[in-house]
C-alpha cells in the first residue's frame, strides 16, 4: 500500500502536480472515511477504484479505540457496570447484561436474582433492541438517499426511548442493571404506558414494509447485492441478524436462552432467504416486530416480587473466570471476566476482562467482499451490516 501516500490529494501550494491520471493499472485511490457521510462512526475504507469498480479495499480503523478492556482492570465490579454499557451506546442494555451475567456467574449469585428483575432485564433488553434496529433503519434509509427514513425511524425510536427514559431515568446510557437485579422497579402506570406505546409501534410497522421493502428502487439497490453465503459468515465468526439473513437459524434467545423470560415466552427466529442486503433489512424489521411481541408478553406475565436479590453493592470477586454471551442487536455480545481474587482499597478488580464484539469480524469480511463491487453498491452493502465501530474497537 505504498502507492497510497504518493497519489493522495495534496492541498499545499508547492506540492508537485496534484493531477491524478486515470489508467487501467493504477486506478484512483479514494479514502472513504474516516470522515465520510455514509460511514457511521470514525472509520472507513481506503479503496482503489477502476472506474466505478473497487479493486482493492483496506479498512481504516483505530480512531476510537478506548482501551475499555484495560479500564476494567482498574474498576471493581460495581464500577465496571457503567463501563460495560459504554462498549456500544446503541445497544447498551445487552452489553451490560452480558457483563452482569458474567460477574453473577463468577460470584455464584446467579440464582439470587429475583424473577421480576429477570423479566425487567429482558423487557429493557428487547426495548433496546428495537431502538437499535430503528437506528439502523434510519441510517440505512439515509444512506440510500431516502429522506423520509431518518425522520420516521427516529420518531418511532423515540416511543421506545421515552419508555426506557421513564423506566431508567436516562435516554442513552441507561445504567439499569445491577449485579443481582435491576436499579428501578416498573410502576403500574409505566406498564400501561409501555403497552400503549408498543401497540402504537406495531401499528406503525406497516410503513416500513411500504417505505423499504415494497419500493422498486429500494429493491434495485438491495436485492441480489452483497450476497453472503452462510459458510463464509460462519468461517468469519459473524453472528446476529447478518447470519440469520443468510438462513442460519441461530438466535441465542431461542437456541440457548440465557434469561428465564425468553424461555417462558419463546422466541421466533426471523430468517432471510438469500443473505443479500434486502434480507438483512427484512430480518431487522421482522426482529423489531418479534421484539414488540416478546416485550408485550413479558409485560403481561411480569411477576411480582423484589427487584434486587443482593442488598449491598458488590465490590469483591472470587478467584476464577466466567464467560457469558447474550444475543445483542448485532450478534453475540461476549464477556470473559478473569479474577485472581485479590483485594485492594477499591475492592477487588478483575485480573483481565475480554470483550468480544460481533462487529470486528464483519469489518474484514466487508473488506474481502468489497472487491469487484461498484461504489454505490459498496455503500449499500457496508451499511447493511449495521456495524457499531465504537463497540468493535472497544
Amino acid at each position, binding site marked *: 500500500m505504498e502507492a497510497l501516500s504518493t497519489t493522495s490529494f495534496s492541498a499545499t501550494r508547492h506540492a508537485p502536480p496534484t493531477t491524478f491520471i486515470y489508467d487501467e493499472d493504477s486506478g484512483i485511490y*479514494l479514502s472513504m472515511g474516516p470522515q465520510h457521510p455514509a460511514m457511521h462512526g470514525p472509520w472507513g475504507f481506503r479503496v482503489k477504484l477502476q472506474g466505478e469498480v473497487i479493486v482493492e479495499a483496506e479498512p481504516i480503523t483505530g480512531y476510537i479505540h478506548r482501551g475499555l478492556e484495560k479500564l476494567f482492570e482498574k474498576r471493581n465490579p460495581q464500577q465496571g457496570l457503567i463501563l460495560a454499557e459504554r462498549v456500544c451506546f446503541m445497544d447498551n442494555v445487552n452489553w451490560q447484561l452480558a457483563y452482569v451475567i458474567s460477574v453473577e456467574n463468577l460470584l455464584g449469585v446467579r440464582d439470587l436474582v429475583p424473577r421480576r428483575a429477570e423479566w425487567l432485564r429482558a423487557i429493557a433488553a428487547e426495548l433496546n433492541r428495537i431502538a437499535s434496529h430503528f437506528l439502523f433503519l434510519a441510517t440505512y434509509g439515509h444512506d440510500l438517499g431516502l429522506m423520509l427514513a431518518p425522520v420516521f425511524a427516529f420518531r418511532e425510536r423515540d416511543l421506545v426511548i421515552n419508555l426506557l427514559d421513564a423506566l431508567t431515568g436516562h435516554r442513552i446510557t441507561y445504567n439499569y442493571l445491577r449485579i443481582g437485579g435491576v436499579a428501578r422497579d416498573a410502576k403500574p402506570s409505566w406498564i400501561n404506558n409501555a403497552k400503549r406505546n408498543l401497540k402504537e409501534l406495531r401499528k406503525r410497522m406497516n410503513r416500513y414494509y411500504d417505505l423499504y421493502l415494497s419500493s422498486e428502487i429500494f429493491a434495485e*439497490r438491495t436485492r441480489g447485492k452483497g450476497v453472503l453465503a452462510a459458510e463464509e459468515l460462519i468461517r468469519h465468526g459473524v453472528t446476529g441478524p447478518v447470519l440469520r439473513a443468510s438462513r442460519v437459524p441461530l438466535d441465542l434467545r431461542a437456541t440457548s436462552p440465557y434469561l428465564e423470560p425468553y424461555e417462558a415466552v419463546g422466541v421466533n427466529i426471523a430468517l432471510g432467504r438469500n443473505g443479500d442486503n434486502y434480507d438483512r433489512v427484512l430480518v431487522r424489521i421482522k426482529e423489531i416486530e418479534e421484539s414488540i411481541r416478546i416485550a408485550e408478553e413479558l409485560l403481561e406475565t411480569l411477576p411480582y416480587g423484589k427487584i434486587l436479590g443482593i442488598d449491598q453493592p458488590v465490590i469483591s470477586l472470587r478467584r476464577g473466570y466466567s464467560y457469558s454471551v447474550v444475543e445483542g442487536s448485532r450478534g453475540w455480545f461476549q464477556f470473559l471476566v478473569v479474577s485472581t481474587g485479590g483485594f485492594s482499597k477499591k475492592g477487588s478488580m478483575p485480573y483481565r476482562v475480554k470483550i468480544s464484539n460481533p462487529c470486528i469480524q464483519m469489518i474484514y469480511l466487508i473488506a474481502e467482499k468489497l472487491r469487484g463491487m461498484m461504489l454505490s453498491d459498496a455503500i449499500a452493502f457496508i451499511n447493511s451490516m449495521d456495524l457499531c465501530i465504537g463497540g468493535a474497537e472497544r
Partner: protein
Amino acid sequence: MNVVEYLRVPQISLALSIGFIYLCVYTMRKLMARVTWRIGPKYVGPAGFFQVFADILKLMVKEDVLPDVEPRYMRIIYGSAPFLLLGLSLALVSATPIPYLVAHIEPLRNSLIWLLLILSLDIVVLIVSTWYVSSKYVFIGSYRALAQMLSYDAVLAMSVLAPAIASRSADIAVVSKGLHGLWYVVSLPLGFVTGLVGVLAEIEAVPFDVPEAPTEVVGGWELEYTGPRFLSLFLAKRMEAFALFVLLASLYLGGDAGYPPLPRGTWLFIKAFLVAVLVMFIVASYPRYSLRGVLSRGWRVWVPLAYANLVLAMIYSALW
C-alpha cells in the same frame, strides 16, 4: 419586429426565475417539513418566508475556497464554471415562452430547437471544468454526471420532440395548443411520464441524484464550490429546472391556457409550479438508484418508452 424589445427578455427571465426559485425553495422546505411531521422554517419573516433570503446572504459572505488545479490556467475555467452554467441556464429560460408571454413580445421562431441545443451544452462546461481538478470526488461525480446525461438527454429530447412532431411545428406556442385542442398529456400520456423522468435526471433530483449522491460521492462535482460560487451553481441548477418545468408545462399541459383567464404567463407559471410540487413529492419519497441501475434503466426502459411515444406521435402526425 423590434430588436430592442428582445433585450428585455433576459432581464424578465432572470426576474421570473429568481421569483420561481425563491418560491420553490421555500415550498420545498415547508413541504418536506409537512411530509416528515416537522414545522420547517419559522422565525425569519412571516412563516419563515425570508429564511431563504437569510441563507442566500450567508452564502454570499462565506469564504471562497478553490482546490488546486493543474495546469494553473484551468483553474480559471473551473472557478468560473458556476457562472458559465448560470449564463447557460439564463439562456435556457430565455428560450422558453414564459418571458415573451409576460413581456408581450412575439416569441422566437422554432424555439424548441434552440432549447434542445442549449440544454446539451451544460455537460460540456461541466466536463471541461472538472477534468483537471485534483479532488477525486469531483472527478468521479463529473463522469457520473456525464454517463447519466448521455442516457437521459436522449429520453428528454425524444419526449420533447414527440408533441412537436404530432403538431408538425417546432414553435412552442403552436405545440401548446395541443392535438386539435386536446392537451398532449391526454393524447401522449407516456410522453409526459418519460419527459418527467428526463427532467428529473437532467436536474439531478432524487431518485436520479447519482452524480451528486451525498452518501456516496459526497456532493460529487459540486463538492468543492463554496460561498458565492456555490450560490451561483445553486441558482443555475434551479433555473435550469425552472426552464424544464415550463417546457414540460407548455408542451404537455396546454401552455398558458386555463380557466379563468389570468394575465398572460400566469397559468404557465402556475402549471410549472405544480410540476415542481410533483417533483418535490417524488424527491421526498424515493431512495436513490445506483449508478448501474440508473444507466441500465435509462437504456432498457426509458429510451424505448420514449421512442414508442415518438412513434405514436408520428402516427398522430400522419393521420391528422
